């Protein structure tokens, strides 16, 4: 009975916004990893973005609510840690929406260094990665803090339009 409607369940989940960045959905962010039937129950596999993300429980509750509204009252949320969530899973059109919203989208999460390169640090004095301003497109930007309004974002400032902005950190 559920089988023909798995696509409906996906659409229901695609309508669940991220609680902290409502312009993208939890499906856009790659938080929903799988959807499967387990008897009469719909099992949703979800991976947390950050291990301490305070939105995780709210997201789980929103998923159950959205599925119930879409006609799946019997659903459960399973948390999977592996593989760990990556910003590389964020859909391209969602990255554009992030930019339109004023958040610079993440670059590639693959940095490949095994040990921290100290000389690449101190971004307050030496910006290493160019993060274009989501507002004016300028490449003259600098990090003001590694941690912004949420753990997943850093705080930047544009040296041309002088606006502060959030950068979704590669993860």
């Amino acid at each position, binding site marked *: 009975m559920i089988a023909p409607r798995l696509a409906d369940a996906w659409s229901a989940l695609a309508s669940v916004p991220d609680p902290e960045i409502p312009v993208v959905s939890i499906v856009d962010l790659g938080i929903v990893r799988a959807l499967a039937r387990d008897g009469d129950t719909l099992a949703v596999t979800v991976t947390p973005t950050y291990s301490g*993300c305070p939105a995780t429980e709210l997201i789980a509750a929103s998923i159950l609510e959205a599925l119930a509204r879409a006609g799946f009252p019997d659903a459960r949320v399973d948390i999977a840690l592996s593989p*760990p969530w990556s910003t590389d899973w964020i859909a391209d059109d969602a990255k554009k929406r992030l930019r339109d919203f004023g958040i610079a989208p993440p670059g590639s999460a693959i940095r490949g260094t095994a040990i*921290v390169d100290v000389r690449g640090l101190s971004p307050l004095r030496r910006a290493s990665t160019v993060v274009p301003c989501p507002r004016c497109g300028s490449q003259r930007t600098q990090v003001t*803090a590694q941690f912004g309004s949420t753990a997943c974002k850093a*705080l930047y400032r544009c040296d041309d339009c002088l606006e502060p902005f959030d950068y979704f950190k590669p993860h």
Partner: protein
Amino acid sequence: MADTQRFEFLLRLGDSDLVLAQRLGEWVGKGPILEEDIALANVGLDLLGQARMWLTYAGEVEGAGRDEDALAFRRDAHQFRNALLCEQPNGNYADTTARQFLFDHWHVLMLRALERSSDARVAEIAAKAAKEVRYHVERSTDWVIRLGDGTQVSHLRMQAAIDALWPYAGELFAADAVDEAMAREGVAPDLASLSGPWRAAVSEALVEATLAVPVDDWAHRGGRQGRHSEHLGHLLTEMQFLQRAYPDARW
């Protein structure tokens, strides 16, 4: 027997994260600048999330029905297994920064080694946590360099903080029977093997910060076996107050 040792080992990981998270939480609302106030809260939150994963697993391995909350809120100081470094008081900002810097550099090496653990659950928690800690180590290293290579006052305070906390770092690399058993089973790395890379990374940053690398390697020990400084009891008094005063209270 093996499970008892694995339980102990998981408590050590979880308790260090939990106690340091609580210390960082003490800064909330009192950070020297808004950005740092937020950064400390975020780093603390990451560590708290990681503590939850380690303690949840510890409770499952113990098999006595204790969950993360029972382990966090219903043990007394002598039952905590965190490294002594993590319970040291916040002090001034250089003290907090030095504590974080020494811990973060160990933490990132430890987690990267644990990603290859023979225990699949340990490996997946470590892989998750390592991604977060990568940002912690960048931040604390930045601040050691800024403060060390900063004003005369910030330089003196940063050096004093490094000198004062250095004797608490050695414990992170001192293996006992539990660590040796975990290394034999491939669950965890040989702790001593992390010491060289840690020293190299920390020294490079200290030199960049125009700070002297301490030469005396005498180390305080005992936190990971439950023998703590006087600071932990006070920290737990605050952290555990609600569950002690109102057992089983829920949001």
